[in-house]
């Protein structure tokens, strides 16, 4: 099933190239807003799946082109983002020491929204195309062997990043990663049953039509089950939480004023966001090879 939010955070299910409004199916779930309605739906999905499928089947739906998609998880309880989690197209002999950071839930934006670059003395802003996973049920100290049952679904995710801020030698992920609008995701939240092999998916990101990132999740350093096990050993994961699995830095490039960014994992829809910068700073266009070389250990 492909779940979406659209227009004024109506809940929809995709049926071919049409969106069927299923908001009424979930109205009885106690919630404060669209953000916790989604996570509380996920928590009780077994009870609602059948009703959603039925509504999707019987509903006419609206053509996709006629709706405005919104973020499928507008404000997750947590976003656990993996750092340095790819082998960089096999250039690294082994995975880097496992590490993660929390990205602000308020950073989430959706398809058609705008990434706003803050007026900070950054060295550069980068896109980081990633696969995002949504947690199905409460997970604490889970075994890697059981990890699969904790996966609700998947979506495109961009971990927009500001480089060069904050004190040297300290963890500065908050001011690198948590800016307003720095977590585009969606447009679809694809349930796990439609993604049989998440460890083998191509991820592509374009800026202004030029292909920048083009990698496969089989290049991941710490694989999905181990990552879920590790993250859940430190923090309890809740339904609707997001894990972003990190990025392959080969193909990273600058983001700047006026850019149009697109990311697509096959089956997940295409996420489009634009970029604005009041300071109108400019950086070289194309792939940032300096960064790529450094992360791959070639610099």
């Amino acid at each position, binding site marked *: 099933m492909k779940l979406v939010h659209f227009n004024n955070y109506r809940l929809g299910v995709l049926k071919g190239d049409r969106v069927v409004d299923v908001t009424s199916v979930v109205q009885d779930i*106690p*919630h*404060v807003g669209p953000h*916790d309605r989604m996570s*509380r739906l996920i928590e009780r999905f077994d009870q609602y799946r059948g009703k959603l499928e039925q509504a999707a089947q019987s509903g006419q739906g609206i053509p996709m082109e006629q709706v405005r998609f919104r973020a499928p998880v507008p*404000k997750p*309880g*947590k976003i*656990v983002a993996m750092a340095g989690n790819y082998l960089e197209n096999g250039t690294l002999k082994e995975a880097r*020491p*496992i*590490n*993660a*950071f*929390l*990205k*602000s*839930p*308020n*950073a989430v934006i959706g398809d058609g929204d705008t990434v706003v670059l*803050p007026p900070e003395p950054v060295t550069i802003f980068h896109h980081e195309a990633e696969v995002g996973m949504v947690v199905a049920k409460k997970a*604490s100290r889970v075994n890697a062997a059981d990890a699969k049952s904790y996966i609700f679904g998947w979506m495109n995710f961009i971990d927009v990043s500001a480089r060069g801020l*904050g*004190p040297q*030698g*300290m*963890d*500065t*992920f*908050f*001011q690198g990663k*948590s*800016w*307003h609008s720095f977590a585009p995701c969606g447009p679809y939240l694809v349930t796990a049953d439609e993604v049989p092999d998440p460890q083998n998916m191509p991820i592509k990101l374009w800026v202004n039509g030029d292909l920048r990132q083009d990698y496969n999740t089989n290049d991941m350093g710490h694989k999905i089950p181990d990552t879920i096990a590790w993250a859940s*050993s*430190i*923090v*309890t994961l*809740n339904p609707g939480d997001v894990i972003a699995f990190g990025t392959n830095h080969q193909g990273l490039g600058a983001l700047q004023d006026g850019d149009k960014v697109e990311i697509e994992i096959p089956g997940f829809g295409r996420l489009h966001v634009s970029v604005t910068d009041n300071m109108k700073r400019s950086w070289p266009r194309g792939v940032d090879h300096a960064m790529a070389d450094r992360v791959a250990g070639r610099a």
Partner: protein
Amino acid sequence: MKLVFFNDFKLGVLKDDRVVDLTNVVQHINQPTPQDLLNGVISEFRTRYRNQFLEAAEKGQGVPLSQVKLQSPLPRPGKIVAMAANYLENGALKEARPINAFLKSPETILATGGTVVLPPDQANVFHHEAELGIVIGKEGAYVGQSEAYNYIFGYVNFIDVSARGLGGSSFFWGKSWDTFGPCGPYLVTADEIADPQNVPIQLWVNGDLRQNYNTNDMGHSIRRTIEWITSVTTLEPGDLIACGTNHQGLGAIQNGDQIEMEIPGLGRLKVQVKDDLKREWPRGIDHVIGDRVAGRA
């Protein structure tokens, strides 16, 4: 006003050493969770609930505090933004260190009376970090320093329990373990703390005074902190800012320790420590970290 959650997350208001149940006053608030209830109260506190609570406190008999089980007054904040290296270390530092913060998992929250569980991972040491906690009263983005205090709902005692030496300098690995965020026992409204930039903070382990500092030693002021955080990300009602700690007086925590922390007017937060591995560290103040952070090492 001092608000608490007690027993099965009933909301209450303190009246001296008694708790008056506010359940009836707030039952119509949309509250899928206790935090949702609190956020609903915070959002309409001045316009609606403050007077109703005062009335309830006046009329109600209440039950003695000793007869209820206190929960965290902040059951699960949407965000915990924790300041890093934010003190001048009793004036040892000439100026504040470059401003920095990290997100601490909301799942760290632990109520008074609870147990901090040390994970089996090979940390060098585990430390207590007593801090002033600020609870946000209204949604704010790009807040200016002059209006910053308008965004404060109230204050809580908070301990930023920390694991050292895991994952390099990783804050996720150091700070976000479940139970690493003791909080409470009361959520005290802002009007009860005249000057948050001048409050004493004390923490004891097994009755020995460890941390003993004042928020006037803070590096980046509360106003600057709120301004900076909201330039990065939106703060919402119920979010928690942990203002950082003065490292002079930091020490190890280990299996069996009884930790107490108090800021005058915020009640006394008491938690114990459990370590299945029964690791041992030197007792008393860890002068190594105190010296290093103060630039004396």
